[in-house]
Every structure is written in structure tokens, then in C-alpha cells.
């Protein structure tokens, strides 16, 4: 499904701030895999997602989705394959535009934008049905500007936008980290619902070790630009948070920011 092969990315090459963000990282996802990604700050989790999404070009290595090589494609040309939800609830929606306008833009993800009226009755009906599933009452607020919504509502909307047109790969970059616990649970619940229902292949970064083990079918841990732990099946079922921390310390030879990992 997704194949990341020996991807190398160095930031600030040739300066004192040179940093190898992705150190020949390789990762393969099977169809319907829901992989949670953990790791300390600067481990390369977000960089990996950005590399897959095409926010920058990698120095070397290959990335492909369902055999389609995407390594050299700019971000906007990968959009028909990949959709994303960012950590910041503000960054997934256009605030000055209405809910239905945001939705129709997402509905046409990866397709051409033509010179014809964007929203018709058919689309509106579809949006109402989809918004109703969120259970936030947004179905009656189609023409409200998104700037009027709360962070949680905006993140739920972003999630709906990301899955309105089924993507080959869904990238979630700590998409609940900026929300209060109750809202975060709600958004996670929605995430699980939609990934199961649409059988999406998903890559989710989280700082919450509990979530990392409960959600999805596979967990990887990153450190210094490499995947240092990759567990699934029985091994994963038997894993506990404390053992996960232990393994991290053993594998990386350093201590993880445990307070944040446990309290998150």
C-alpha cells in the first residue's frame, strides 16, 4: 500500500544547524493498516508525514502508494491519494469561508477546479447527512463561517473533509493534541468510526502512549529519524505503557520525556 524506502532528509545542510531529520527510514503499510506513531520531540514523526504528503522533496529514497511513485510529485499532485488532518484545528479549514464551501473544496480534493457553480442541492443534501453523523449540530449551520466554530468542531469538520472523498492514505498528525480531553475523545471516536467504516489505511502520530496501543493494529516508535520499534499482533496486545517506555530507553539509549508521554 504505502511504501517508504530508505528516505533521507537533512535540514539546513552544510550549516552548523544541520540536522538529519529522516535517516534512511523505511516503512511499509498494508491495506487497512492503522498505524500509530510515537516518539520524542524531534524524532522525525511529523517530518515523515510531511515527506509522504510532499511538503518538501526528500534528499534520497523512494515513496510510493499502491505502486504509484510519488517521490517527485509536488504536494498538490498527491492530493488525490492522500488526505491530512493537522494538529492545529485552525490549519485544516478556511476560516473566512462557510462550512459548505469548505466541504465542497474537500469533496473535490485532487480533482480539477472548474468554472462552474460549486455547490448544488445534491451536494448540500450529502453534506447535511455527513455532518449529522458528527453529532455536533453542524448540519443546520451549512452557511455559517468556519471562524464561528470551536476548535473541536473545526477539527471534527477537518476530519470529515479528509474522508469525504475516500483517500488511499489518511495522515493524522497529533490531530487531537490541541483539544480538551473530552473533545479529543469525541474526535478520536469519530476517527475510529470513519477509518473502520471506510477501511482506510491510516498513519496517526500521537503523544498519548495509551492511545498508541489502543487504537489501530500496529504501533511504530521513531527516534532520531529512524523506526526503532515496530509491533503488531500478539506482541502489541501484550504491550504495556511501562514496557513500551522501557523498550524505548533500551533501543535508543536515552530517556524519553516520560511525564508528557504518560500524562498526555
Amino acid at each position, binding site marked *: 500500500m504505502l511504501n517508504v524506502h530508505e528516505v533521507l532528509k537533512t535540514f539546513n545542510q552544510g550549516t552548523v544547524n544541520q540536522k538529519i531529520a529522516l535517516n534512511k527510514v523505511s516503512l511499509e503499510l498494508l491495506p487497512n493498516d492503522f498505524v500509530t506513531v510515537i516518539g520524542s520531540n524531534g524524532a522525525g514523526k511529523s517530518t515523515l508525514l510531511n515527506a509522504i504528503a510532499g511538503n518538501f522533496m526528500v534528499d534520497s529514497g523512494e515513496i510510493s502508494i499502491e505502486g504509484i511513485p510519488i517521490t517527485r510529485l509536488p504536494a*498538490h499532485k498527491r492530493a488525490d491519494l*492522500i488526505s491530512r488532518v493537522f494538529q492545529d484545528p485552525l490549519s485544516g479549514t478556511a476560516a473566512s469561508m462557510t462550512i459548505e464551501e469548505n466541504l465542497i473544496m474537500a469533496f*473535490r480534493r485532487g480533482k480539477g*477546479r*472548474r468554472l462552474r457553480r460549486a455547490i448544488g442541492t445534491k451536494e448540500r443534501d450529502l453534506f447535511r447527512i455527513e455532518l449529522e453523523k458528527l453529532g455536533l449540530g453542524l448540519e443546520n449551520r451549512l452557511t455559517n463561517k468556519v471562524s464561528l466554530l470551536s476548535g473541536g468542531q473545526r477539527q471534527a469538520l477537518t476530519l470529515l473533509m479528509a474522508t469525504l472523498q475516500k483517500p488511499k492514505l489518511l495522515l493524522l498528525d497529533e490531530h487531537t493534541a490541541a483539544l480538551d480531553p473530552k473533545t479529543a475523545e469525541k474526535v478520536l471516536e469519530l476517527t475510529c468510526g470513519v477509518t473502520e467504516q471506510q477501511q482506510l489505511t491510516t498513519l496517526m502520530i500521537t503523544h498519548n502512549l495509551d492511545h498508541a496501543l489502543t487504537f489501530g493494529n500496529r504501533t511504530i516508535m521513531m527516534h532520531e529519524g529512524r523506526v526503532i520499534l515496530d509491533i503488531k499482533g500478539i506482541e502489541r496486545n501484550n504491550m504495556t505503557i511501562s514496557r513500551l517506555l522501557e523498550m524505548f530507553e533500551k533501543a535508543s539509549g536515552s530517556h524519553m520525556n516520560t511525564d508528557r508521554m504518560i500524562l498526555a
Partner: protein
Amino acid sequence: MFTQIALGTMEQGLMYAIMVLGVYLTFRILDYADLSVDGSFTLGAATATSLIVGGTDPWIATGMAFIAGTLAGLFTGILHTKFKITPLLSGILTMTALYSINLRVMGRANISLLGSRTVFSDFAKLPFMEEYGVLVLSLGSVLLIGAVIYLFLQTELGLALRATGDNELMIRSLGVNTDLMKILGLGLSNGLVAFAGSYVAQKLEFADASMGIGMIIAGLASVIIGEVLVGTSSIGRAILAVICGAVLYRAIIAVVLQLGLEATDLKLITSFIVIIALVSPTLRKKIASWSAGVSGKEAQ
């Protein structure tokens, strides 16, 4: 006398409103302060007048002015998106280059159209249009262009353009080439500005190499005045605000002139209008936090 001035102000305001609609497209929709406007306004005037003097039909000349302006905007857009030059500098480069180009187009510093056919002289020949022809043609043009922009901004392409100004990262992740959107927006905007320039020159029957100086600030002032007075709750309302703002701006200028200020002081006044508008939100916040601080101390 008064009605004469009022009519003249109205006519001018409506012509400038076409320019301000262009400024609105870049400044508000794309969130891009495009300084090429100063050059492309004159470019429109220069193109139309020199073509008319050369014997071209004024309607075709006006269309050519739009195309010339569009090309200037495309150039700014390419400088910014393909060569990563900052928005301000891209605009300044185009504006400066256009100054020489405009002089080349005109062949001299100014052109008179006295006695030539213009779109307005043509229009005045229609029945009942002798007295109010300029007003009717300007109003009709503004309403038509405003309506087209309104409809365009509801299309798939228009939404992508708006989202480019609102949240570039997001719309790119939805598969839109934002570079292309910026180039398109800048082209369209400068086309409208040049179109307005050609109208103004044909009304004045005169084009001058320096007639575009300060146009961007006048445009911003008009956008801001309109937004404050009419509001921006929807796209339709924002477009209406822009048109009203342009007319009101001209009215303010006319009043200021009647009060005895020199025409040469206008740019100073216009700059002040924009400065006040830009400063007031920060100032209001500062005053609010200051008074909150005072009451907080009192509470202690």
C-alpha cells in the same frame, strides 16, 4: 453647480470602483498587497489612448487595456511564485518597469484625446444618453463586473482562489496549485485596474504617465471605507462594500477639495485614511488592555 460636482464625483467613483474591485481581489481575497496597481492603471490608460489616437475602435482599445493589465499582473505573479520574490518587491518591480513601458506605449509623457471617439462619446449618441451617458455606462460596467466577480467567487475555481488567500497549506493539501491561483488572481486584478484606467482616461480625454501614482493607496482606502460602512458578512456584501467605498472615497476627496485644500494634498489625506484604518484595531486593543489594567489595579 452642486449637481455638476455630485454627478462628476459619482461618475468618477464608479469608474474607480472597477479599479477598487481589482484591488479587493488581491488585497482581501488573495491577502496580497499588490503594488503593480500603480503601474497597471496607467498602462490601461496609455494602451487605450494611444490605440484610440492611432485609429483603433475605442471599445476594442478598452479591451486591449484589460489584456495589457492582465499581462502585467501575470508578470508580478510569476515573479512572486516562480522566483520567490516577496509580494511587495514583486509589485514594486512591475510598477517600476511599467513606468518605462507606459512612456514607450504613449511615446511621450501625455496624450490628449480631445475630439477623438471614446466609449463615452459613442455611448452618449444612444437615445436619452446625452446627459447621463457617462454615469449610466460606468454604473452598468461596475454592476456587471461586480456581478461577474460575485458569481466567479462561487465557482469551484473561485473557491480555490479564496482558499488560497485564507489557508494556503490546507487548499494545497486538497490538490490546488496555489501558485497558479495567485498568478490568476493577480492577472484578473490588474486587468480590472487597467480597464478602469482606460475608462478614466477616456472620460478625462487625457492620459498621463504619472496618473497611476498612489492608486494602490486610494484603492486600499476605498476598500477599507466600504468595509467599515457596509460590512463584509458575505461575499456579495463585501463586493457591494467595495463599490460603495470607492464612490464614498471620491466624495470625501471632492468635499476636501471644496473645503479649499490643494489637489496636491490629496495623497497625504489618503495615506492618513489608510493609516487610521490600519492602526485602529491595534489602538483599540491597546486602549482596552490599558483600561482593563487600570480597573484591575482599582479592584486590588
